[in-house]
């Protein structure tokens, strides 16, 4: 039999349905692969029993002649930001070491209800704060990709770096990610896979460890657009337990997939041609334009005049929300407690948080605390929320003349670990193309477009109107079919 771990979600689902192979065979194959891939450090916890028990349920349902669930026979990876009942959940932070949730997040529960099984919990940037997966308290995730003739470890992107690395290395056919400022799309681009952040409110945030609540949104990362559509359908949906959950039916995105762009207008935002953009990124962007033209789309130039202010606005809003959300880690109810000899309550809080949070998390909490502090609130936070309104309005106006926007996903291919970690702002700039659509709550996805000169993947981003995930997926499919991206990393691990 061919290696089952070469198959994506759709192929695995269909193969289990037709009986070409059993769900247990699939789960076994991935479990072995995960166990062998320790050098990638993609998994924080392995849960082979969870995957196998879902697989046995799928096989039993088929044997009994029942209709199989949408993801029956498909084992996935779960970013460690999602609370999973009975399985340690840390957000890759020491402060949550030993935390075992007594409840299941809505998104993960929906995936189990759809028949999926869990191979394990995936490493990530600590509290989803980072763009290279170097802020995890449990070690860097390593990208399965390498530059030719060079064994220097590359960043898988972040914050969903474990998800990216695992899917790209074939350790799981799909994984959950979360995206606050690009944390699904940038890692997907770095490792040559697809990933979509849906409209804010599509996926429930209940049980997902909070970073910046007005931005956090879950989404799938998988090998292709169809697999993303299948997984997103299972993850999305109204949840009364999340006040910002959208009360909307979940469209049948997979059923609606169509690579034809006839009658569609694709906007190219001129402000995304940033200074110093590598030629290869420019060339890839042009290739994307040509592919969508070939699919029948009309290309129009659009303007998003406030683009350059998106990153600074984001680095006020996200840390401000984080400083508030992370106030809950106080050493009282869960997680780490550091109680120095003779310390009082206030000292215990301060010692616990000093010991438990990593450097980047502390940095963002401090920025957030500063911009929200008395005398600075209006100058920073209120101004940032006004700028955010202007950024959202830019998109609204652009969408009067086009249906989707096409941009590069990131300003470069994957960089080496350590290359940017000394300069926070250089790291933040990696999210220059993904942050604006996050601030506007828009659906956006990254699909692989090609390789750079060093043989590393590059991604293209499609941004859609609110609730138009279908338009985004379809444009992604049109690119996917024309890019013919089939490169995979050579196994060295």
């Amino acid at each position: 039999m061919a290696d089952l771990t070469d198959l994506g979600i759709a192929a695995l689902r269909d193969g289990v349905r037709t009986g070409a192979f059993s769900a247990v065979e699939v789960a076994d194959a991935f479990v072995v692969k995960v166990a062998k891939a320790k050098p990638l450090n993609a998994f924080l916890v392995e849960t082979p029993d969870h995957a196998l028990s879902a697989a046995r349920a799928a096989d039993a349902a088929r044997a009994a002649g029942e209709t199989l669930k949408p993801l029956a026979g498909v084992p996935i990876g779960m970013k460690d930001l999602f609370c999973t009942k009975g399985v340690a959940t840390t957000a890759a932070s020491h402060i949550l070491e030993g935390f075992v949730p007594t409840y299941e997040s809505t998104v993960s529960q929906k995936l189990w209800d759809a028949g999926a099984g869990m191979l394990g919990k995936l490493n990530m940037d600590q509290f989803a704060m980072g763009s290279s997966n170097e802020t995890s308290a449990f070690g860097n995730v390593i990208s399965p990709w390498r530059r030719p003739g060079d064994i220097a470890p590359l960043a898988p992107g972040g914050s969903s770096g474990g998800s990216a690395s695992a899917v790209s290395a074939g350790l799981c056919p799909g994984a959950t990610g979360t995206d606050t400022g690009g944390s699904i799309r940038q890692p997907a681009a770095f490792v040559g896979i697809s990933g979509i952040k849906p409209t804010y409110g599509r996926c429930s945030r209940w049980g997902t460890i909070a970073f910046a609540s007005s931005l956090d949104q879950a989404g799938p990362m998988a090998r292709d657009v169809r697999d993303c559509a299948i997984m997103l359908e299972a993850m999305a949906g109204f949840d009364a337990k999340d006040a910002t959950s959208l009360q909307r039916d979940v469209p049948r995105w997979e059923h609606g997939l169509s690579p034809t762009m006839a009658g569609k207008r694709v906007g190219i935002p001129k402000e995304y041609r940033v200074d110093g953009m590598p030629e290869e990124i420019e060339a890839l962007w042009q290739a994307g334009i040509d592919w969508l033209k070939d699919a029948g789309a009309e290309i129009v130039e659009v303007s998003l005049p406030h683009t350059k202010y998106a990153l600074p606005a984001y680095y006020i809003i996200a840390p401000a929300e984080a400083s508030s959300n992370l106030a809950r880690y106080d050493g009282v109810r869960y997680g780490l407690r550091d109680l120095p000899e003779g310390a009082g309550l206030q000292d215990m809080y301060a010692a616990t948080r000093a010991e438990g949070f990593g450097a980047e998390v502390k940095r963002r909490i401090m920025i957030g605390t500063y911009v929200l502090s008395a005398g600075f609130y209006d100058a920073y936070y209120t101004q940032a929320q006004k700028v955010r309104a202007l950024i959202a309005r830019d998109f609204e106006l652009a969408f009067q003349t086009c249906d989707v926007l096409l941009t590069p996903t990131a300003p470069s291919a994957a960089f080496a670990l350590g290359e940017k970690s000394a300069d926070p702002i250089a790291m933040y700039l990696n999210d220059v193309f993904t942050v604006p659509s996050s601030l506007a709550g828009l659906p956006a996805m990254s699909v692989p477009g090609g390789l750079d000169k060093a043989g590393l993947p590059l991604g293209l981003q499609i941004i859609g109107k609110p609730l138009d995930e279908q338009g985004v997926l379809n444009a992604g499919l049109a690119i996917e079919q024309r890019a013919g991206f089939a490169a995979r990393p050579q196994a060295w691990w």
Partner: protein
Amino acid sequence: MSVDTATVKKVAALARIAITDEDASRLAPELSNILGWIEQLGEVDTSGVEPMTAVIANHLRLRDDVVNADPLTGGGIRDALMTNAPQAEHGFFTVPKVIE
């Protein structure tokens, strides 16, 4: 905006994060840099612009006025809540003595 070590210590105290003098001297230029960078927002003319409150227009719901309508967010789960506590006694979270 340039922040000095005294400001860093004040912010750390507000954030309930213990820092050493060394940390404060390291963080001062770092935070100054980041704050200097985000200050470019001041250039944007936002007169007449309302600050954003919701990215997608959404109606805030009220839940049904029913006790334990959803057991996942309802009450009566004390023991489950306490299982992850670093220290708990008799169904209470315990902390160091607050009042002498």
